[in-house]
């Protein structure tokens, strides 16, 4: 099975999986092609792939690869 690292944990994925798919898997929210939440709300999420930002607009086209290091972050209490 092909694995990548998602928020620090091993995560199996199928060929052709995009960053958008991973965001939906983690947040439970469907996305539009633009990377906006389909429910119309603000998603408040950003993605780094191998220590580089993947802009929201590219999520739907950005196909992940084996051993990728994906971080999906959001705002939490702090500061």
């Amino acid at each position, binding site marked *: 099975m092909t694995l990548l690292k998602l928020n620090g944990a091993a995560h199996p994925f199928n060929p052709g999986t995009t960053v958008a798919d991973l965001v939906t898997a983690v947040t439970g929210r469907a996305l539009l092609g633009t990377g906006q939440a389909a429910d119309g709300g603000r998603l408040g999420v950003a993605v780094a792939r191998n220590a580089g930002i993947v802009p929201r607009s590219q999520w739907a086209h950005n196909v992940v690869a084996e051993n990728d290091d994906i971080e999906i972050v959001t705002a939490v209490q702090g*500061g």
Partner: protein
Amino acid sequence: MTELLTGTDPLVIDGVTLGSRLIMGTGGAPSLSGLGAALLASGTGLTTVAMRRYSTPGQGAGQGAGGTAGTNLFELLLANNIRVLPNTAGCFTAREAVMTAELAREALETDWVKLEVIADEHTLLPDAVELVDATEQLVNKGFKVFAYTNDDPVLALRLEQLGAVAVMPLGAPIGTGLGILNPHNIELIVSRASVPVVLDAGIGTASDAALAMELGCDAVLLATAVTRAQDPIRMAQAFKHAVIGGRLAAQAGRIPKRRHALASSAMDGRPDL
């Protein structure tokens, strides 16, 4: 009259008018609902958040905020019209801080960032070298940097010259509640700054915030003093009034300190008793 009642001639940072001179942090609150109530009680218009991994509910405790709570925090701020100020808390290097700021800009759609680059977990004091480096990089990338800094007048001025939109000297180390340990330095920073000065960190109780404003600071940023108070809502109200009181006092112009007493009642016309 309205100004006198609220005590708030508006605070303007980066061209944005904020209704309150109290900036709140969100760290240390045991529950999101309690935090929301405290934020509303404080009257704040700007609140910091940290950027962390999105954790699916039920998995990994993480920040105690959890994934859903994290998302709700953002929604809570949006719903209450409180502007969000992402921070780079937990970053030890300029590289990490710049990356965190970029993630925050992407996630929260703001180019404002509270830049925090700490030297070590024991003191949580800013690392001046990394801070300067990160400020320069972030300004070049178009960020509006709120620089959390030591109470060092030289460094504060340097950060302003690098393009920070606000400088945020600490009163005392984060979470200590020791108040303002070097009021003279804070006064010196204020006297030379041409960007807003926000007293950040170390505030323990309302009088500390009032003092910060009396020293000439433009705003106060605090979290722990409210979120870990026994009654956070009441403490949030206390800070709201303290900041207003301190601002009014700073504008009103205090009397000079004297070594000897000065009667306020005239001696003339005193009856011969």
